[in-house]
């Protein structure tokens, strides 16, 4: 079983890396870009014996404890 954890900055948190990417996209001609926010993606391989619910619970705990910093980041867990 595989889980994906998307970690993104909370709204209102300045994301200078996203801004730099946005400017670069504009520079190379993608004028339709309004905003870019850069985040992280974790792919976590899990024991196949887990139920989907248990997997979601466990991975959510992993995100809360380590993968994301709740002061500045949100996260989303997807079990595949």
């Amino acid at each position, binding site marked *: 079983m595989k889980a994906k954890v998307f970690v993104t900055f909370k709204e209102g*948190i*300045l994301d*200078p*890396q996203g801004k*730099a990417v946005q400017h670069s996209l504009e520079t190379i001609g993608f004028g339709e870009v309004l905003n870019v926010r850069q985040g992280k993606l974790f792919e976590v391989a899990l024991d196949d014996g887990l139920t989907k619910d248990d997997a979601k619970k466990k991975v959510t705990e992993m995100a809360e404890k*380590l*993968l994301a*910093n709740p*002061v*500045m980041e949100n996260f989303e867990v997807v079990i595949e």
Partner: protein
Amino acid sequence: MKFGVIVFPGSNCDHDCYHVAKHVMGQETDYIWHKGRPSLESYDCVIIPGGFSYGDYLRPGAIARYSPITDEIKKYAEGGGLVIGICNGFQILIETGLLPGVLMRNRSLKFICEDVYLKVESSDTPFTSEYSADEVVKIPIAHHDGNYFADMDTLKKLKQNNQIIFRYSTADGETSVEANPNGSLLNIAGICNEKRNVLGMMPHPERCAEGILGNEDGKKIFESIVKRVMQPC
């Protein structure tokens, strides 16, 4: 008195801190490897030095936060022990939750290594008692992630409790936007906890604590600590 200098894989200011504590201040000093769980009770002050613990992987300080020694540091701090975290040490204290807020990537996205001026906002800590309040000192910074951020409630509390200890300033003590190297809210360079026994700061006082280096502005931090331990008030 006895200093303990914590060593994580990737710490690189541990020797500087050890040198100042042991040779400049003349105090007994130990290195403490992160893997053990020694009781820290026999130490009078624990220093979490700068560097790149675990290569700054994930977020600076995030992996070190789960090293075995970090639980001991937490216990020690909660029991009133003196803990100072410098640069990466500050980042670790933040990830551990001993200090509030976050340290984000510098506004410029650049690693900044330069002398900066700091205004000492409070001399009412065991780490800054030898400074006078509003004194301006020159101490170098060297970091990529020192951009302090906290929500409004946290900032309000920090201000109310006088927990903001150092702010980036001009040589004249103006805490202006121009004097802010990394984008930190309120020009924050260092804060302490409510009980005032845990200090985190991005600048490196251990790099300017003896005359031969041409700058001794950081020495008073170590002198304050020694004084507090030798003559507890």
